[in-house]
């Protein structure tokens, strides 16, 4: 680990903190909803610690809370998680080591850390990625502990408007992303694809399908990001 790596990690950690705070409350909602549905507090906490993927957790919980079985819940979670496949492929060239080491490093990917660690040229700063994920993992775990044990005091998270946090969390990541030339057109196209598919496909598929809009990157205005990286300080 070089001095530059340490600095990336520290910067990532700081950038991850606000996301960690919001993540705490989102994860708290998960703890409340999971125990409401019939999970024991330890089970809710185990989900947060072992799965650590908000959209997949909420998607699978809503399936089983609605009376669905394990296969349907796993399918819903995997569809929500499928975007990590795209993110993992993008990240792969920036990860050193053998397959096992790379697989382990890939576990650190969450949406915000992946987006913040992107250098904008298709490569990633992996230490920034790890730094950004760490505080979020800790607060994610802590939030569920509080939600699972204090659920009775909190009541229905929707009553408190806590369901608005999840999308705002992602908008915060997006705002930085949209500053790149061409990114807005790609984002808008992704939104149109996703909304058009909502009535016709199971939840999760519209999100994965939206990634097709990234192909517009081939014709998007702006300089070649790879060439840009060569000129970057």
């Amino acid at each position: 680990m070089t001095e530059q790596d340490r600095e990336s990690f520290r910067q990532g950690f700081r950038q991850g903190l606000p996301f960690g705070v919001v993540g705490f409350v989102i994860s708290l909602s998960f703890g409340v909803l999971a125990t409401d549905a019939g999970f024991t507090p330890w089970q809710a906490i185990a989900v947060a610690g072992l799965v650590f993927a908000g959209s997949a957790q909420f998607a699978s919980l809503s399936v089983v809370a609605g009376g669905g079985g394990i296969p349907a819940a796993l399918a819903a979670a995997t569809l929500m998680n499928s975007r990590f496949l795209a993110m993992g492929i993008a990240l792969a060239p920036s990860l050193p080591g053998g397959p096992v080491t790379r697989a382990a490093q890939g576990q650190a990917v969450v949406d915000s850390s992946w987006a913040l660690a992107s250098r904008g040229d298709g490569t990633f700063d992996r230490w920034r990625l790890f730094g950004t994920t760490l505080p979020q993992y800790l607060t994610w775990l802590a939030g569920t502990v509080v939600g699972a044990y204090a659920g009775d005091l909190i009541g229905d998270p929707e009553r408190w408007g806590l369901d608005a946090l999840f999308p705002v969390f992602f908008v915060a990541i997006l705002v930085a992303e949209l500053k790149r030339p061409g990114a807005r057109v790609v984002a808008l196209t992704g939104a149109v694809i996703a909304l058009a598919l909502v009535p016709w496909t199971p939840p999760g598929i519209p999100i994965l399908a939206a990634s097709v809009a990234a192909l517009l990157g081939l014709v998007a205005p702006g300089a070649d990001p790879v060439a840009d990286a060569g000129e970057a300080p």
Partner: protein
Amino acid sequence: MTLGTTEVWLLILGLAVTTALVKAAGPVLVGGRELPRPFMRVLSFAAAPLLTALVVTSVLADGRRLAVGADTVGVLLGTVLLLLRVPLMVAAAAAVVVTATLRALT
């Protein structure tokens, strides 16, 4: 919920394993090699549509139905504040308060 305690543990195990596999797949299969330039260019544009789709579907979709609710208004306000460079925690708090207030009133 119709699942018993043991079944919930099975579900948790399944979720943990499938999530880990999905996250490992890209790094293992593609590996630490350079990808062709056009491919890198497409990848560099992958985040924007994925995140936008995540936002619009969580705000405007209710299962397979398109729907607008109190959270739509709250998230819209949060988005405007973020665009005005308001810190995330403030924007998030505003979105929550507006969503909760609208729900209490309607």
